[in-house]
């Protein structure tokens, strides 16, 4: 019984400090301090690694026995179930926004493009990691073909899935969009991507955390600003959970 007052004293001190911390994080100045710290991390990482340096690639023998599914594990619509049953013969990937020549691709057309295969590690913001072999065309090839206008600053990924009643979406800047490992994957470990991992198409943004890797991909959109999309923070988790837009940390 002796440790109860001590524990409440500790808890009291913690609460006092945390109360002050809550005031900091709820304030505008506090939030801009966090944003500045995040910005410095991004700039430092880009300066140290360079824009094109690759995330480590593993050998096929290093692939983890399973690839954990997290977040959306399916798309809860009859249209998606029909597509899943038919092998996604009607699935289209639209490339548009601030581009000279918008277009759309079928799965067969995506499979016919030049492919990149990479065995990479997927790190979830929660802390776990899985390793898988991903295959698909590079995003940069599609953007070149669409001829992105110079005023585009970000690439937005549109998805078929919803979480907590909101459309999932994500975004990256042009540095990551043109990175060689940024691919639109349609194969995981040599097979079509399983439903729980984002069938039929999933983005790979290898130098950032898992929530940037949009699943059930339906559209790629070049934009000048993220302000008018969703709540304006650049992604589902950024809007809904206040997650950091730059997920390289």
């Amino acid at each position, binding site marked *: 019984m002796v440790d109860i007052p001590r524990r409440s004293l500790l808890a009291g001190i913690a609460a006092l400090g945390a109360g002050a911390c809550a005031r900091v994080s709820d304030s505008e100045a506090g939030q801009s301090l966090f944003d500045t710290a995040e910005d410095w991390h991004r700039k430092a990482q880009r300066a140290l690694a360079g824009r094109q340096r690759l995330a480590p690639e593993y050998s096929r023998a290093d692939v983890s026995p399973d690839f954990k599914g997290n977040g959306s594990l399916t798309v809860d619509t009859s249209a998606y179930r029909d597509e899943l049953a038919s092998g996604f013969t009607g699935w289209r990937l639209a490339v548009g926004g601030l581009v000279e020549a918008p277009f759309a691709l079928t799965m067969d057309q995506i499979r016919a493009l030049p492919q990149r295969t990479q065995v990479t590690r997927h790190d979830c913001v929660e802390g776990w*990691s899985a390793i898988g072999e991903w295959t698909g065309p590079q995003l940069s090839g599609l953007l070149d073909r669409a001829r992105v206008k110079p005023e585009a600053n970000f690439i937005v990924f549109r998805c078929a899935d919803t979480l907590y009643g909101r459309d999932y979406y994500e975004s990256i800047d042009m540095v990551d969009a043109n990175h060689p490992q940024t691919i639109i994957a349609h194969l995981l470990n040599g097979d079509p991507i399983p439903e729980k991992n984002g069938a039929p198409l999933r983005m790979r943004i290898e130098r950032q955390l898992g929530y940037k890797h949009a699943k059930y991909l339906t559209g790629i959109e070049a934009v000048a600003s993220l302000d008018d999309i969703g709540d304006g923070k650049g992604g589902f988790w950024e809007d809904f959970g*206040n997650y950091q837009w730059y997920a390289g940390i």
Partner: protein
Amino acid sequence: MKKRHALSTRIWHWINAGALIVLFMSGLNISNAHRYLYWGDYGFDPADAWTRVVRFPGWATLPQHYDLAAARDWHSLAAWIFASGLLIIWIAMLINGHFRRDIATERKDWSIAALTSEIAAHLQAKFERHSSKYNSLQKITYGIVYGIFLPMMVFTGLAISPGFEPAAPWMVDLLGGRQSARSLHFIFAWALFAFFAVHIVMVIVSRPLRQIKDMITGGKDEDPSHG
């Protein structure tokens, strides 16, 4: 008059203490997101975990409720203060001689006789001394904290950051893979907590008010050899 603690030591001590408390408490919040630790490159299945970590109660975490995004905000901000502070204090210690004079050990600090008598004195809480110089146990402890525990927090922290990894993939390999680095980040955080607990106890049993005052004002150097 010569001070017991240099100004650089005092400023760093308190800033670092604040940064470490924020890092530790926000880290406990982050730990609650996935309470399993693994060795190697990957790990997601609790069946492969070498340990399951307890769920840390709200009063021990920052914020005081589970909020991964806010905890990561605090962690990323305090990491800058902690890592740059560590770099600066190391440079200052090497320039002003604090490391060579007070922390670097000599052969006699490692002799069994010296260590056993120090341990006996600690256990009897005998801390009255006429010198401000650190005893052997203090030198060894501070050396381990400065040279291993604190730098390892920075290295293991960098190693689990996917955006940093392309800059120094060898660091992740050296630590045994990303999940090993994450496990080590956790282990060294608790090693620092153990140091923190012992440090607080030692301050409390050895004239706490004077110790705290000296770490603020600098105190008076009572080592006759510093004349």
